[in-house]
C-alpha cells in the first residue's frame, strides 16, 4: 500500500546521496589544489589540509619566478592563430563536403576521417623532418601553420553541423543568384554560428592544453614556452615550494574554466555533436 512511495523516497534519497558523494569526490582535487596554493612552502610539507596562515603572496611569487605573462602570451598566440587559420581553411571544406556535389567527395571525407582518428605520431617523423629542412624547428610556425591547411577534427565537426541545415535555404539562395561563396558567407555561416563557435572553442583549447607540440618544436627556446609546457617544466626548479607550484597550476587552469562558464551551452552542444550525430 504505502510501500511504493516509501521505496520511491528511499531510492530518491539513495540516488541523491550517491550523486552528492560522487560530486564531492570530483571537487576534492580542485579544492585541495586551490587551498594548497595559499599555503606557505613549509606548511605544504606537513600534510596540512587547510592554509594557516593564508599565504596570498604565492600568487605574486608565481608571477616573479615564472615568466607567466610570457607563457600566457605564447599560448594565446598559438591557440588564437591556430583557431583563426582553422576557420579560414576548414569552414569552406566542411561546407563543400556537406552540401556541394563534387567529385571525390567520398574519398576526401574518408581521408579526413582517417586523419582525424590516426594518432599524430604516425606522421610525426616526416613532418618533423620537413620543418627541420625549412629551418623552423624552434619557432611557432610548425605549431600554427598546419592549421591554415585545415584541421581534420574541425572539418568533421563543422560538416556534421552543416548537414543539419536544411538544403532548401541553399536552393533559395542559389535562385537569388548566389554562387557557392555567397551561399557560404551569407547563408551557411550565419546559420551555423553555434557550430562554428563550438569548433573554434575546441581548437582553441586543444592548442592551449597541448603539451606534445610545444615539447617537440619549441622546448629548446624558453622565450616560446606555452602555459602547458612551462608548467610541466616549472616544478623541478621549485620542487620544495608546492604552494607556489599549485598557484601556477591554478593560474594555468583559470582561463579555461572561465571561458567554459562563458560559453557553456556552445561547449556542450559541440561535444554532443561529435559523438552522437552520425
Amino acid at each position, binding site marked *: 500500500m504505502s510501500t511504493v512511495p516509501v521505496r520511491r523516497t528511499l531510492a530518491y534519497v539513495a*540516488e541523491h546521496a550517491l*550523486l552528492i558523494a560522487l560530486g564531492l569526490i*570530483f571537487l576534492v*582535487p580542485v579544492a585541495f589544489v586551490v587551498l594548497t596554493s595559499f599555503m606557505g612552502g613549509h606548511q605544504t*610539507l606537513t*600534510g*596540512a*589540509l587547510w592554509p594557516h596562515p593564508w599565504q596570498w603572496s604565492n600568487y605574486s611569487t608565481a608571477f616573479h619566478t615564472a615568466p607567466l605573462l610570457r607563457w600566457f602570451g605564447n599560448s594565446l598566440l598559438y591557440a588564437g592563430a591556430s583557431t583563426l587559420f582553422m576557420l*579560414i*581553411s576548414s569552414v*569552406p*571544406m566542411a561546407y*563543400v563536403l556537406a552540401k556541394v556535389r563534387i567529385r571525390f567527395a567520398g574519398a*576526401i*571525407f574518408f581521408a579526413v*576521417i582517417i586523419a582525424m582518428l*590516426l*594518432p599524430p*605520431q*604516425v*606522421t*610525426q*617523423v*616526416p*613532418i*618533423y*623532418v*620537413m620543418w*627541420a629542412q625549412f629551418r623552423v624547428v624552434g619557432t611557432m610556425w610548425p605549431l600554427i601553420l*598546419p592549421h*591554415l*591547411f*585545415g584541421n*581534420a577534427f574541425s572539418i568533421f565537426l563543422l560538416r556534421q553541423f552543416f548537414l543539419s541545415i*536544411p*538544403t532548401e535555404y541553399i536552393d533559395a539562395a542559389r535562385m537569388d543568384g548566389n554562387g557557392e561563396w555567397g551561399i557560404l558567407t551569407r547563408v551557411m555561416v550565419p546559420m551555423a554560428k553555434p557550430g562554428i563557435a563550438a569548433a573554434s572553442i575546441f581548437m582553441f*583549447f586543444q592548442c*592551449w*592544453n597541448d*603539451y606534445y607540440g610545444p*615539447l617537440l618544436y619549441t*622546448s629548446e627556446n624558453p622565450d616560446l614556452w606555452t602555459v*602547458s*609546457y612551462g608548467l*610541466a*617544466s*616549472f*616544478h623541478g626548479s621549485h620542487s620544495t615550494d*608546492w604552494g607556489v*607550484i*599549485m598557484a601556477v597550476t591554478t593560474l*594555468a*587552469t583559470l582561463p579555461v*574554466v572561465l571561458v*567554459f562558464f562563458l560559453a557553456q551551452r556552445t561547449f*556542450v552542444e559541440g*561535444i*554532443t555533436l561529435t*559523438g552522437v550525430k*552520425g
Partner: protein
Amino acid sequence: MMALATIGLLVFFLYPLCANVYLSFTNYDLASSPKWIGLRNYTYLFTQDPRVWHAARNTLWFVVILVPVRMVCSLGIALLLTRRKRASGFWRTLFYVPALVPPVASVVGFVFLFNPGTGPVNTLLKTFGIKGPLWFNDPSLSKPSLLLLGVWMMGDVMVIFLAALLDVPKDQYEAAELDGAGGRQKLWYITLPNISPVLLFSAVTGVIAALQYFTEAAVASSVANGKTGIDAGADQLLGYPNDSLLTYTQWMYVQGFSSFQLGYAAAMAVVLFVVAAAVMAVLLRKAGLFRRKGV
C-alpha cells in the same frame, strides 16, 4: 579556399604517411641523408629493443584497463544524471569541468595530492588509520594512479553518453514497463541497444587515444621524480618509476627526437599505424560515418 584543406591533407597527411614508410627502411639522423638498410629497423624493434616491449605493454595496459573503466564510470554517472531533471545542468557541469583542465595542470595537481609523504590524500587516509601507499612513486601503483586521474577527467565521454541517453525514445521504456520489465532489464534491452553507436564510437576513439597516451604519463613521471620536463637525456628520465609509465609513444619520442634515430622512430610509427588502422576499421565498418544526409 577549399584548396587549402586539400593541400593540407596532401602535405600534412598523405605525403608524410607514405614518406614515413620509406624512412622506416632507412638509417636517418637528420644530419646526413637517409641510408637504406632494409628491414633492420624492424628486426631490431621486434627482436632486440628490450624497452619497446616494455613500453608497448604499458600502453596496452592503458588500452585494456583505462578505456573500459572510463566508459563504465561515464555511463554510470550519465545514467544517474538522466534521472535528475531539475538540477542536471549543475551536475553535468560539475562532472564535465575536470575534462577541460589542461592535462599538464591536472597531472601536476594529482601528483601533489597523491604525494606519499606530504600529500593531502595520504593525510586523509592517515586520519582513518590507513597507511597510504606510494602512489605515483610505486611502480605497481603508478598506472592505477593515472587511472584515477583518467576517471576524474572522463567528462567529455560522459556528456556524449548523457546526450545519447536523453535521445532514447520514452515510449520504449513505457512499453517495457507494461510488460513488467525491471530496471536492469530496461538497461540491458532498451538503453544499451539504443546508444550502441555512441558506445562503439567512444570505445574506438578511446582506444586510439590510449594508443597515443603520452602527456599524462610523461608529466607524471617527471613531476613524481622531481625533475623538470622532458629534456636532453630524456631516455633516462622517462618512465619513472622503474619504466612503469614509459609508453610506446614516449619511447618513439626518445628514439626520434631525442636520440635522432629517425628511421627507427618511423618504423615504430608504422607499427602504431597498423594497430590504429585495425581499430579504425571496426569503427568505419560499423558506425556508417559515410552516410551523406541532406545533399
